[in-house]
């Protein structure tokens, strides 16, 4: 079946502009995660959605970052007034049921470059 998809695959933007990144999770997966991967670094957790519960936003680095998810479908990560330090690969992952499913299925990522 289809895996996690993300769009765009690459995004180049000017400093100060807003960007929106999209994630389509695997159908039926109730939990969705966003991570950031800076060059030469591991993945940093950003935000987590589980069903209709309030999202866990504890990993968002600043109030310029926000994310939404409608039900158990698509999620968008928005970065306002982008800065050069926002340049990274943004990865989305989904799982079938957060409490009992331990494998996170990752999308290919969106490579964001802020010039």
């Amino acid at each position, binding site marked *: 079946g289809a895996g996690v998809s993300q769009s765009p695959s690459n995004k180049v933007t000017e400093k100060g502009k807003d960007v929106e990144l999209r994630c389509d999770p695997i159908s039926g997966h109730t939990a969705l995660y966003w991570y950031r991967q800076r060059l030469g*670094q*591991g*993945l940093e*957790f950003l935000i987590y959605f589980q069903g209709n519960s309030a999202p*866990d936003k504890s990993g968002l680095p600043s109030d310029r970052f926000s994310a939404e998810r409608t039900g158990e479908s698509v999620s968008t990560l928005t970065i306002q007034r982008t800065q050069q330090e926002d340049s990274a690969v943004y*990865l989305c992952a989904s799982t079938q049921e*957060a409490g009992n499913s*331990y494998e996170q299925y990752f999308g290919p990522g969106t490579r964001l470059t802020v010039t």
Partner: protein
Amino acid sequence: AQSVTQLDSQVPVFEEAPVELRCNYSSSVSVYLFWYVQYPNQGLQLLLKYLSGSTLVKGINGFEAEFNKSQTSFHLRKPSVHISDTAEYFCAVRGRNSGYALNFGKGTSLLVTP
């Protein structure tokens, strides 16, 4: 909170040689442990996971890892590597009862040459 240290940023190895990628974790609670692989220009793929039970875990592509609680380690091994194993390998940890997000190490780049 949990954290992971991958002791080697790069590991060069010749084809058909054995390899070990090291991972140590820090946690005040019991943990689940994972190894993910990221092939060039692809997303992360789960190699193997330790949840409970036998401390020796076998994964895909001939990889295995051993959970050592006293050493707080979860090293990844393969007895004979192939060129196609060239990739970035990430160790990750999450607490059993403390949230669902994974804490990743910085990754180890495995380069297999003929």
